[in-house]
């Protein structure tokens, strides 16, 4: 309780200094919209988990590859939408983000975080996974996590989109989106997203999809309004 008050006092002090309370998302404006694609999205293949029965039996319905989450009306899910420029530098959130291995899948498939933010990696499965984030900018590591092992606690120091894989289960694929900002989100399966808590200012908003690349747009926030900003990415076959 006392901690909380102290924290908000510190926050306000910071806010007046920098004019931007960064991790404090309740006040301020919002950017919201929908992510769609043009062209033909590649068909996602069904994943065969027969080699890992303890995972296969957790799925009642077929499990599909998650590289492109295309919906009705060309909507696009699992797109990272974030503030790539503008505003004051945001303070690193004190809450960790969690990456879970469950049913031999990554939850979530793509996980945004700010550089320096605590990342917690859990294994809920009855099989060993190895977590192998294939970073290029940050140091590359590869760790085994057997069933029941404690979560792996780590951080990434530099912004980078890092493909993550498990070498034991080659169908497991995900991404860590390490960003310079705490203002980030992932579009839902219907393509919608919302970034709230933006102090007045001019921003560049970027949408990133692992196959279809990025698109950036400018937006200006004056107060507590919601600015509408849709993204349209070009589908690439592969």
């Amino acid at each position, binding site marked *: 309780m006392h901690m909380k008050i102290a924290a908000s006092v510190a926050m306000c002090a910071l806010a007046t200094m920098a004019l931007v309370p960064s991790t404090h998302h309740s006040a301020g404006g919002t950017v919201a919209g929908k992510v769609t694609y043009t062209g033909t999205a590649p068909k996602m293949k069904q994943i065969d988990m027969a080699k890992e*029965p303890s995972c296969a039996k957790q799925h009642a319905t077929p499990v599909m590859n998650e590289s492109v989450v295309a919906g009705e009306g060309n909507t696009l899910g699992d797109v990272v939408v974030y503030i790539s420029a503008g505003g004051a530098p945001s303070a690193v959130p004190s809450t960790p983000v969690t990456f879970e291995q469950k049913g031999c899948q990554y939850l979530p498939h793509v996980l945004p975080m700010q550089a320096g933010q605590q990342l917690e990696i859990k294994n809920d499965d009855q099989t060993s996974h190895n977590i192998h984030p294939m970073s290029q900018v940050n140091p590359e*590591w*590869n760790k085994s996590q*057997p069933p029941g092992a404690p979560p792996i606690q780590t951080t990434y120091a530099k912004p980078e989109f890092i493909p993550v894989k498990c070498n*034991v289960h080659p169908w497991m694929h995900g991404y860590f989106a390490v960003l310079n900002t705490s203002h980030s989100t992932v579009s839902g399966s219907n393509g919608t997203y919302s970034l709230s808590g933006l102090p007045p200012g001019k921003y560049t908003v970027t949408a990133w999809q692992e196959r279809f690349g990025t698109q950036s747009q400018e937006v200006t926030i004056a107060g507590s309004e919601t600015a509408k900003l849709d993204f349209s990415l070009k589908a690439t076959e592969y």
Partner: protein
Amino acid sequence: MSRVAYRIPSITASISFLLIAASAGVAQTIHGLPREGRGGDTKVNTRVGRPAAGKQEYTRYCAGCHGDHGDGVGENAQWIEPRPRDFTQAVFKCRSTLSGSLPTDQDLINTVRRGIVNSNMPQWRPLPDQMQADLVAYIKTFSPRWATEKAGTPVEIPPETPVTTESILAGRAMFQKFECWKCHGTAGRGDGPSASSLTDSKDQPIHPYDFTTGTRFKCGTTNADLYRIFMTGLDGTPMASFADNIKGDQGWDLVHYLRTLQPIRTPESILWKSWLATHASELKPIGPESGGR
């Protein structure tokens, strides 16, 4: 980069090495001015390695494979599998330090002296110690990581425990529990269910170590080397670090079991053979259906 990988049988490999050594010698006369080193001097014990001195030797002995810019694409690299290391990433297989951290200077010197079995990386033991230190100092100039990061702390290796049947059996249970068999195979032949799909971080196919034909490892030969290998993992490959989950003396149990899989006479293999002669039927097979003993 072409993804076609050529397997070079060992005789051709040695011939091609001679060619490589010869062409590297030629390369030396062509390449220009010394590159400004990013890393500083390298201290190994009392010896100081100097990057400026290492540059010449590097161009002469190493650039043919590792490239003038240390990016692993020297003129001979395309014929070689596994590919020569790209030093610009500063990701190394053989370390005494935890996964994701830089190796110590001593680790790099050890690799240069030892060479890498089952690869085209030669032993450089004949080179004078000072030259080895200079070479290591020079290869550290290729990645900015060396200027901003310190080498990791070495993994602690406790004194080896006695080789006993109990220890081997405990190690066997670990081989099952930590699912080494998924890549290395139930008998250690490198033919586990995940083996065929493996690639390294440069997207090149890579094969799990075959214990039944291998006597030496890329990263050493001793029991302590073996302990270190599965604790640190081989960065840049599917071989992960197990240091978070294997602790202290437990690691020796796994070492003792792995030694029974190899085609060499070791205290472990002698003891295991005699135990198996009368107890083989008590063992459950390693693999998906099993839980160790």
